[in-house]
């Protein structure tokens, strides 16, 4: 199939700086978002995702300025998530130069918001982000529950059922993060990714747990992801996006070189 699988570096941005946490806590500084995005663009990243983890709303403007600066010089798709709660938030971030927004907590609070956003802006720019955690015990069928507010709040909602519902409501793509694996470097939750990918008609971005290049390949071959997202393996200079692509190509995975 000629459509390439995508590699998406993810930048967690806190008040204008790129940071990276482990299991959503213990955050360390990784640099300037514009400089990092430019570097990933030059390395051949297929898209870039920014997650705004800023707590206070008056600092949200900072994210729009970051997007503006990046969009003026990096000509690949840009996705922004974090704090998207209203159509006005989407409009502002798209006007700053983003191509897609990722909606998470606001979708859980009011699922109709996703439908309204897709109708207003088109489903091509609406990504629903899902943070999922295993809740089944050994011996039971696998089951995942979604969490919101940066993974702090349980919802009681089944992750697979939620993914199907969000695709029906107009999400053009799903960004699924395994909370059990995020920041652990143990690899994707492949069973979660595969279960979601096979359940929905829209593309899946797998996230959470990448510690080496083989994990990226597994996400595609075993997790059936259309795109793989990673942060720390790129931020701290262990691997370039180019090395990641060469690794996938060597395994016969269709990629953009």
């Amino acid at each position: 199939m000629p459509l390439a699988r995508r590699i998406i570096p993810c930048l967690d941005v806190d008040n204008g700086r790129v940071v990276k946490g482990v299991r959503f806590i213990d955050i360390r500084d990784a640099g300037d978002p514009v400089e990092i995005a430019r570097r990933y663009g030059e390395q051949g990243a297929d898209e870039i995702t920014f997650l705004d983890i800023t707590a206070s709303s008056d600092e949200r403007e900072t994210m729009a300025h970051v997007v503006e600066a990046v969009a003026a010089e990096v000509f690949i798709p840009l996705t922004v998530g974090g704090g998207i709660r209203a159509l006005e938030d989407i409009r502002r971030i798209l006007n700053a130069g983003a191509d897609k927004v990722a909606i998470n907590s606001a979708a859980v609070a009011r699922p109709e918001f996703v439908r309204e956003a897709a109708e207003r802006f088109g489903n091509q720019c609406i990504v629903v982000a899902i943070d999922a955690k295993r809740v089944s015990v050994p011996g039971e069928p696998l089951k995942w529950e979604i969490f919101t507010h940066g993974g702090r709040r349980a919802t009681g909602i089944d992750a697979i059922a939620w993914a199907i519902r969000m695709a029906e409501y107009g999400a053009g793509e799903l960004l699924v993060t395994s909370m059990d694996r995020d920041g652990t470097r143990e690899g994707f939750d492949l069973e979660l990714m595969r279960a979601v990918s096979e359940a929905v008609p829209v593309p899946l971005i797998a996230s959470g747990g990448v510690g080496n290049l083989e994990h990226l390949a597994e996400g595609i071959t075993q997790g059936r992801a259309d795109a793989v997202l990673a942060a720390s393996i790129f931020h701290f200079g262990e691997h370039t996006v180019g090395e990641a692509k060469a690794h996938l190509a060597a395994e016969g995975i269709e990629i953009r070189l």
Partner: protein
Amino acid sequence: MAVLAIIDYGMGNLRSVSNALLRVAPAGDRVVLTSSPEVVRAADRVVFPGQGAARDCMREIVGHGLVDAVLDAAASRPFLGICMGMQVLLAHSEENGGIDCLGVYPGTVRYFGRSPRDPLSGERLKVPHMGWNQLQQSRPHPLWSGILDLSRFYFVHSYYVAPAETGLVAATASYGVDFCAALARDNVFAIQCHPEKSAEAGLQLLHNFARWNGKPA
């Protein structure tokens, strides 16, 4: 000093389109985002971008009084349609239960289907068709200058153009079906993917458009 107008009808990633054109346009040229029919009529080149749904696109260009200005530009000056700005040039779209479009070219805009399969591998394909796919150039064109055949461009769409005349096709791409990924005739070039988001190859295409004399060869 030439003026390049990007038609703003309230939809899509216009900022991305203008950012990319500002990067590649000749020094001294002006790139303007506009919803004014007069500005479109006075421009030397016109870009008709678009994202979203066919019904909304048609409603917005009708509502902004832009239909005649778009048709006039497509009939007379270097004109670049992108994504939805390509699809609405056809006569009809299957989207939104069936929508009549501008009818510059005969043909229909078709849906990939909810869960199409790749005829070769049998693999289920996701819709939207989203990501980097290869453009196979069907024939030479000034806008392909400096772009290798089979270069990858960024696509995001659920519907594709099926022109009634094969002579319109300037490039194809493959996603379960081989579909028309670019069409060209006279001063019009239209492309399904997003050159403004397609890194070097896309910037090269926009660079070429910003210097194109509107002749097909």
